[in-house]
């Protein structure tokens, strides 16, 4: 039964529907929510297999179904679905692992009050993750990317009444958001440069040759090719989401969420999204390889960051005491490996490692989950111990997961995928540093995993919780077993001798011969790691929980630094945090005093002029007026005295006047 690309949207739609149902069901409807979620996930898994069948028919083809989201100016914003082997494989992995984790979490979260809301968020997360996988448009990918961020926020902060969880959720969201800014800018630049955001659109798509050549030819600031710049910006998003070196701080804190969440998000899917993104836009990322003269190749940056993160993750993991923190840091380092693989040019190896890692890391987390479940939420390995006895199945599956992760040769998938990466790193012509980092990381991984197993499972129970530990119910242990089987079998899909997986992903893939020497070195390194681990922790098992860690005894300050995650959180708090508060204060002060001040000044000015005009009005104008009227009155008085009131006098004057007049006329001689 094959699923054509038009119906591809069903895969994410089903979990979304389940999430909707979950949101509407009241708290009491636990069965409904769980049923809907798991059912939807199962169906999605079946559909994914169908999609895989169609994709495998023609691995090279990119089946596309595009549609218009809304008109914009003369053209329109168009989204679409893409089906190719990468999508299909990832969908199958995500749906399968998701299904197992959902089943596990029904048991794990059984007695939690907000059970329904938990499942609603889980299926929301699954839908978003699947959205990323099937997206044929960078915009749709970005939308699902953000929704995944939201889901992770909701899930990490699920027990929001715990302030630590709430803080962790916020931190996760903010850090990924910082990465997403880069992603957004990259996307904007891409859409501006090429006019569309669709990957494959019958020739006009972004990842198709015409757009790519255009991008490569344009250069931007610092001589970088536009495609390199966009690639780097997109890589920021990926780094944020996959917890790469500068933005990895949120991953360990994300362990505050329930273990299935950690398993689902921080092992299998979300963190893998970053790698998937780079893999998806690999043509764009590798476009600038052709230009030798380019000052910087996007992929070399990816490789560098990958190497650093791998090394960093592994080193810190050694000094962690919380079982989930150790696994978190191991995820960080494994993701570093995948980025390394992408950087050195072999995205196929990265995807192969991604798939294998998804399974055994999910296994480890779930096992840890069942340990915690069993040990009544005790997570500190120093408190645990001697669980080998009571938790037989958990111990067995945990051991398988540990060995796959460490890369125990031949039997476990981890070995083959890590082998492929190292092989690719070895073949990288730019520089060998990542290769050496990879090797060191292999040793460290082996070391801290054996420490973990030794501390947690061997020796005697060191706390009341670990004493009464009892095996988890079947609903939890069955997924563990299934995962363990996959962790083993999956490796054989991509061995150098029968690189089926690589071929399906990249038909042009050809495995170079002579990997044998490399394989031997890695086997030796793994053995070295496990041996030293056992040597330090296996033989002299810890007596009491409070006993100092052997390494801590030897190198106390280094161990303390590593335990404190190399102080990145404090560093960020110190720099970004303070800058942030400083800016906030500055803005507020600016607002409160500068602008408000200016307004108050203006008002004051208005009042001042008001007073001035009143003053001048009061004494200048009125005063002058009074003075003149006074003057007028006095002159009037003098003249009024002439009015004597004596009529005779008046008549006398008239007569005299008459006389003078006549004299004047006669003498005047006007005749």
């Amino acid at each position, binding site marked *: 039964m094959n699923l054509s690309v038009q119906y591809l949207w069903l895969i994410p739609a089903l979990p979304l529907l389940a999430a909707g149902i979950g949101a509407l069901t009241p708290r009491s409807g636990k069965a409904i929510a769980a049923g809907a979620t798991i059912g939807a996930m199962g169906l999605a898994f079946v559909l994914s297999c169908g999609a895989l069948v169609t994709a495998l028919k023609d691995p090279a083809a990119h089946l596309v179904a595009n549609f218009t989201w809304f008109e914009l100016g003369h053209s329109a914003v168009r989204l679409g679905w893409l089906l190719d082997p990468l999508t299909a494989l990832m969908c199958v992995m995500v749906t399968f692992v998701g299904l197992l984790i959902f089943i596990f979490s029904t048991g794990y979260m059984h007695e939690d009050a907000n059970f329904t809301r938990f499942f609603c968020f889980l299926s929301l997360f699954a839908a978003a993750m699947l959205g990323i996988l099937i997206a044929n448009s960078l915009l749709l990918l970005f939308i699902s990317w953000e929704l995944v961020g939201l889901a992770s926020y909701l899930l990490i902060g699920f027990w929001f009444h715990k302030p630590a969880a709430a803080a962790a959720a916020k931190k996760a969201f903010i850090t990924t958001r910082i990465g997403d800014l880069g992603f957004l800018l990259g996307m904007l630049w891409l859409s501006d440069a090429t006019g569309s955001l669709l990957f494959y659109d019958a020739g006009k798509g972004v990842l198709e040759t015409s757009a790519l050549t255009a991008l490569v030819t344009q250069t931007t600031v610092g001589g970088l090719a536009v495609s390199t710049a966009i690639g780097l910006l997109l890589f920021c998003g990926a780094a944020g989401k996959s917890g790469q070196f500068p933005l990895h701080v949120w991953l360990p804190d994300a362990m505050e969420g329930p273990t299935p969440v950690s398993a689902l998000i921080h092992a299998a899917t979300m963190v893998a999204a970053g790698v998937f993104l780079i893999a998806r836009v690999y043509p764009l990322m590798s476009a600038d390889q052709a230009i030798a003269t380019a000052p910087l190749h996007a992929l070399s940056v990816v490789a560098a960051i990958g190497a650093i993160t791998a090394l960093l993750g592994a080193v810190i993991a050694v000094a962690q005491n919380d079982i989930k923190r150790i696994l978190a840091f191991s995820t960080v380092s494994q993701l570093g490996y995948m980025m390394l693989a992408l950087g050195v040019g072999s995205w196929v190896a990265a995807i192969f490692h991604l798939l294998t890692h998804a399974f055994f890391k999910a296994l480890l987390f779930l096992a840890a989950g069942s340990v915690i479940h069993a040990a009544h939420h005790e997570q500190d390995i120093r408190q645990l111990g001697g669980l080998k006895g009571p938790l037989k199945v958990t111990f067995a599956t945990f051991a398988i997961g540990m060995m796959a992760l460490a890369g125990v040769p031949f039997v476990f998938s981890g070995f083959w995928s890590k082998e492929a990466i190292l092989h690719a790193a070895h073949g990288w012509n730019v520089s060998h540093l990542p290769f050496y980092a990879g090797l060191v990381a292999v040793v460290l991984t082996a070391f801290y995993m054996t420490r973990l197993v030794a501390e947690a499972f061997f020796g005697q129970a060191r706390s009341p919780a670990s004493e009464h530990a009892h095996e988890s119910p079947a609903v939890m242990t069955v997924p563990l077993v299934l995962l363990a089987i996959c962790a083993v079998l999956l490796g054989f899909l991509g061995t150098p001798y029968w690189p089926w997986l690589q071929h399906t992903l990249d038909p042009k893939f050809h495995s170079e011969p002579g990997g044998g020497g490399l394989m031997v070195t890695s086997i030796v390194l793994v053995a070295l790691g496990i041996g030293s681990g056992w040597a330090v922790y296996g033989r002299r098992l810890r007596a009491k929980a409070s006993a100092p860690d052997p390494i801590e005894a030897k190198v106390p300050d280094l161990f303390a630094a590593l335990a404190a995650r190399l102080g990145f959180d404090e560093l960020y708090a110190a720099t970004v945090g303070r800058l942030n508060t400083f800016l906030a204060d500055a803005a507020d002060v600016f607002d409160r005093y500068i602008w408000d001040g200016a307004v108050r000044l203006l008002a004051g000015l208005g009042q001042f002029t008001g007073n001035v005009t009143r003053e001048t009005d009061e004494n200048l104008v009125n005063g002058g007026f009074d003075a003149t009227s006074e003057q007028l009155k006095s002159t009037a008085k003098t*003249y009024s*005295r*002439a*009015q*004597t*009131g*004596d*009529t*005779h006098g008046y008549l006398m004057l008239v007569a005299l006047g008459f006389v003078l007049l006549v004299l004047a006329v006669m003498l005047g001689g006007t005749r």
Partner: protein
Amino acid sequence: MSLSPLQLCLLFSSALFCVGLIGALSRSNTILVLLGIELMLNAANINFIAFWRFGPAPAAGTGVVFVLFSIAVAAAEAAVGLALVIAVYRHQKNIRLQEANRLKG
């Protein structure tokens, strides 16, 4: 000195005018002052008739007409003047002109 009849009349009227004026000025009794003024007015009328009779344009009777009007107005004036005198008297109990000087500055 040959005086034309006109000049004679003018002399007569100016004589009458001056008598009226002197009377008006010298007497303190308001009624006599009014009578003096009345005299002056009549002197003017005499001039009118003199100029009508001996003046250049005897045909036009304006001189006579004006005398009539002047008589009428003078009569009215005399009536009002004397009414005022009576009012003043009622108020002031004597009609000496000097004492009716309330309207001074």
